[in-house]
């Protein structure tokens, strides 16, 4: 039965709500039937007539001068169409390209290589096999140079210079440079006030910690198919991008082709997690090759190429300090970070923020004074520094503050839950101005922690732990980790955030067809988030069109309105708001048409789930379906035909989701083997659009958090060799390793968001990682351990156990 109103057969509200499948219901994912049947359409599924395939020739050295490149044997190989080197790109001025962070990056190595597996030449051939064979025939003569691996040694007088091209530049994109390997120093906060608070403090603590280099490692690697039509002058690129419109603008800048002649399509994307935000040399080479050869050219990374050359995350070497009184009330926070950005500064942050939103580092706590200083450093490692499932360095910030609060608690002998209660921001302090200049929109931290402690019977756990510690024969150590995080997502207000000068708004365009069904297009792009499901739910609730009748389309710049894409949990906070507002515009126009049909004033008509009713006369009603039909044949005088709306939403502020996570671990003191006994995750993401998708997002984020905390690391040896470049070495948890997750929630809507939603996908990643470390450290805390660096794999945990002589029987 459709929504046509006949008073005798009007379905119940429950039935109408069920049919709408609006916000708050666990609508099944629209995307899943195609994914689970193998019917997705990923970039590598795209095959075009006459398509060629490109393969990169890469450097085995982390730092070496290129003495010569001989491509003759490769070019002579049957089936090879072109071999591009920096020399070939030079006349086009495409041998270097701008990065999102205001630096430049070599598309193909120009004179020297500065990280292992750097792009040196691009071989284009009939198929991938021929191209791979021919790539081995490209002879490159290298002269190895001294390698810089340790960022803490980068600014030494005798350190090898990574970047010859800018070694004499004393000003970079983010201010003064004090060494050839120095990128920027970024300070925020009141240094003098903070220093004074430390000088006068009753207690201070200090802790060094390394947030290791990791990689988002999406299941689908990066790649593209570029196709240039020489006759029409049009460029079509299918690409694994989290931000197709930004790619179009960058490609336009690089190629001088007008944006109107460039079409970027992100089809189904197999996970991004930040890895697919940047522009990579492979994309540029495929596009150039297609323009030169006039044939479509495909480039798809191998797993090793993905892990070792496209954007990594973290690599923050941090020192945190807290000043407090004897009761554990925090007076000041001081942080220094040495940030290893690799050989080119290709971080994906809003342009003005070289350390992203790291200044959310004051966390969930009322900290009156804070000062943060970040030094960005070049080393002979892969460029990157993206936000792996977090909103621009938020993971690093949350890790630091959560660790420091624990360190302070240990120093003062205060329980790790209690110290949080003593420092939490209170509900009545919101909106709250932090010492580092952010305005938190809403939060209610104390009830969340109380709920978590009750759910796990925290006092009983601590009693069990005390008994375990008292037992000299206990084979396992028990740790309890608590993390009460605040995230910052939804980048962002254009007054603060832009990418290459474009404000970080997002957009939505909705067209309602005569039959009452609709198509909606957004500037974002799902990589697994389920936008086609949840976006339709927002429209259903606001405009009264059943979600099942709404087609959601993203990722094609030829049809979608301009948007900044999907990363940093920005889709719901930014695009979600645009969707709600566009839906509202539809509803308001529909109200006028309904009033016209009912022959009353629009003010006398009210919206009721999926119809408009005359106030006080509920039998006088018009359904959205009837209104949609009328929009194409019977509109009020002076009104344009049709029923469509566009909205570009520039958020007034970020949103600040929060949560309480608690982890219980058992550690075998002899082997270092760890078992996650329980993991409780309470998330508050404001208004909840689809609880099932939220739960899925949280499970995914927790699993990736588990991966980072317990096993992931991109290791480099002294010669700059990447030792974590395959899934043999790089930990990707499966259902075998992943612990059981217990999820919970509270709801504290965002006051400035049209529907109160805050975004959720990254909280579980951001919040779980410090929680795992907290639990691991807590297992050893009674023996004086205040910190253990990740990853907490068995070997490293055993080393800790061994250092304390705990592994001796």
């Amino acid at each position, binding site marked *: 039965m459709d929504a046509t109103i006949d008073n005798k057969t009007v379905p119940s509200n429950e039935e109408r709500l069920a049919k709408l499948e609006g916000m708050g219901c666990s609508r099944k994912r629209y995307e899943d039937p195609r994914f689970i049947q193998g019917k997705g359409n990923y970039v590598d599924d795209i095959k075009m007539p006459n398509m060629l395939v490109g393969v990169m020739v890469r450097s085995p*050295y982390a730092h070496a001068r290129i003495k010569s490149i001989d491509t003759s044997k490769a070019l002579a190989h049957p089936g090879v169409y072109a071999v591009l080197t920096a020399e070939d790109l030079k006349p086009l001025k495409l041998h270097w390209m701008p990065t999102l962070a205001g630096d430049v990056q070599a598309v193909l190595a120009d004179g020297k290589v500065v990280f292992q597996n750097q792009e040196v030449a691009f071989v284009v051939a009939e198929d991938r096999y021929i191209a791979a064979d021919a790539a081995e025939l490209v*002879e490159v003569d290298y002269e190895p140079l001294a390698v810089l691996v340790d960022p803490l040694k980068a600014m030494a007088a005798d350190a090898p210079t990574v970047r010859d091209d800018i070694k004499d530049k004393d000003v970079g994109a983010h201010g003064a440079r004090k060494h050839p390997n120095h990128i920027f120093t970024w300070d925020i906060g009141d240094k003098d006030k903070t220093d004074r608070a430390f000088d006068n403090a009753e207690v201070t603590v200090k802790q060094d910690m390394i947030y290791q280099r990791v990689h988002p490692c999406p299941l689908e690697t990066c790649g593209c198919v570029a196709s240039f039509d020489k006759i029409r002058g049009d460029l079509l690129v299918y690409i694994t991008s989290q931000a197709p419109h930004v790619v179009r603008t960058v490609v336009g800048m690089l190629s001088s082709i007008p944006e109107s002649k460039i079409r970027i399509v992100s089809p189904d994307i197999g996970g991004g997690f930040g890895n697919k935000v940047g522009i990579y040399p492979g994309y540029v080479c495929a596009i150039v090759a297609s323009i030169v050869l006039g044939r479509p050219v495909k480039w798809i990374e191998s797993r090793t190429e993905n892990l070792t050359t496209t954007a990594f995350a973290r690599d923050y070497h941090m020192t945190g300090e807290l000043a407090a009184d004897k009761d554990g009330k925090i007076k000041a926070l001081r942080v220094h970070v040495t940030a290893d950005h690799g050989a080119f500064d290709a971080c994906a942050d809003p342009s003005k923020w070289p350390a992203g939103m790291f200044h959310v580092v004051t966390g969930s706590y009322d900290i009156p004074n804070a000062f943060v200083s970040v030094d960005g450093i070049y080393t002979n490692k892969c460029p990157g520094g993206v936000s792996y499932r977090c909103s621009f360095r938020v993971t690093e910030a949350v890790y630091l503050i959560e660790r420091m609060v624990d360190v302070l608690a240990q120093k003062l002998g205060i329980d790790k839950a209690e110290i949080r209660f003593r420092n939490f921001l209170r509900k009545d302090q919101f909106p709250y101005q932090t010492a580092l200049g952010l305005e938190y929109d809403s939060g209610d931290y104390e009830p969340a922690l109380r709920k978590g402690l009750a759910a796990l019977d925290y006092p009983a756990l601590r009693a069990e732990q005390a008994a375990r510690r008292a037992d000299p024969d206990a084979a396992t150590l028990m740790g309890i980790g608590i993390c009460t995080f605040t995230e910052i997502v939804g980048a962002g207000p254009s007054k603060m955030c832009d990418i290459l000068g474009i404000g970080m708004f997002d957009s939505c365009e909705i067209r309602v067809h005569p039959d009452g069904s609709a198509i909606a297009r957004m500037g974002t792009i799902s990589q697994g988030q389920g936008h086609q499901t949840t976006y339709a739910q927002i429209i259903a609730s606001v405009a009264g069109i059943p979600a099942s009748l709404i087609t959601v389309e993203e990722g094609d710049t030829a049809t979608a309105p301009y948007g900044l894409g999907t990363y940093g949990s920005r889709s719901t906070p930014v695009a979600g708001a645009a969707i709600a507002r566009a839906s509202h515009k539809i509803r308001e126009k529909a109200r006028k048409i309904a009033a016209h049909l009912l022959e009353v004033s629009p003010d006398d008509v009210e919206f009721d789930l999926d119809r408009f009713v005359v106030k006080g006369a509920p039998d006088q009603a018009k359904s959205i379906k009837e209104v949609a039909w009328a929009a194409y044949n019977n509109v009020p005088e002076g009104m344009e035909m049709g029923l469509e709306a566009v909205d570009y939403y520039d958020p007034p502020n970020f949103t600040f989701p929060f949560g309480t996570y608690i982890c219980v671990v058992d550690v075998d003191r002899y082997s270092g083997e760890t078992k996650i006994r329980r993991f409780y995750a309470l998330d508050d993401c404001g208004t909840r659009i689809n609880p099932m998708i939220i739960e899925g997002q949280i499970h995914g984020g927790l699993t990736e958090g588990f991966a980072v905390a317990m096993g992931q690391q991109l290791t480099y*040896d002294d*010669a700059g*060799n990447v030792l974590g470049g395959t899934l043999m070495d790089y930990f990707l948890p499966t259902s075998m390793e992943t612990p059981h997750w217990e999820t919970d929630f509270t709801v504290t809507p965002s006051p400035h968001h049209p529907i109160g939603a805050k975004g959720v996908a990254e909280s579980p990643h951001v919040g779980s990682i410090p929680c795992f470390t907290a639990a691991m450290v807590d297992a050893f805390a009674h023996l004086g351990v205040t910190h253990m660096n990740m990853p907490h794999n068995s070997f490293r945990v055993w080393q800790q156990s061994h250092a304390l002589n705990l592994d001796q029987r």
Partner: protein
Amino acid sequence: MNVVIEKVFPMPCSADTAWQFLQNIEGVGNCMPGAKITERVDDKNHKGTVSVKVGPASMSFRGNIEVREVDAATRTLHLIGTGSDVTGTSGASMDLVATVKDTGGTTCELVGKSEVGMTGKAAAFGGRVMNSVAEQILKQFAANFALQVEALQSQQVAPAPVQSEMNGLALAWAVVRDWWRGLFAGKSA
């Protein structure tokens, strides 16, 4: 990735014979499993190749060997070898100091200290077995060396070196066998 390998191999000949053979770079090079000296550039410099095949992966290194020092008084030879895989995916280097030590009469010892460096694919995939592989290679080298000096001692025609290409399967087997033995060898491993 660098590993330092120090080895002592007893040799069934006099120190003088061993030293005489050690100065024959072509001869010594050919004792290395999978290695071949392809060109003598001058007294100090040679060109050569090393091939290794483990399972489906094969690597062929091309490079230069430079004689840094020949000290007859201490019977010491210092070599530097650098090379890269012909497919351009790996690099390797070796700094070797070899000394012949007299142990009296008809026996002596060949003492080798080498620092081997690897970059690229070889380091990424071979890193974790590099020590064991190097050890196996050196064992085969010592065996070949012993055959050569024994022949030289008795002025016979030397037999051909055991293998011209390093046999990956046998090498892998030897690595696993030694690892297995190491498990039961107590703390000395």
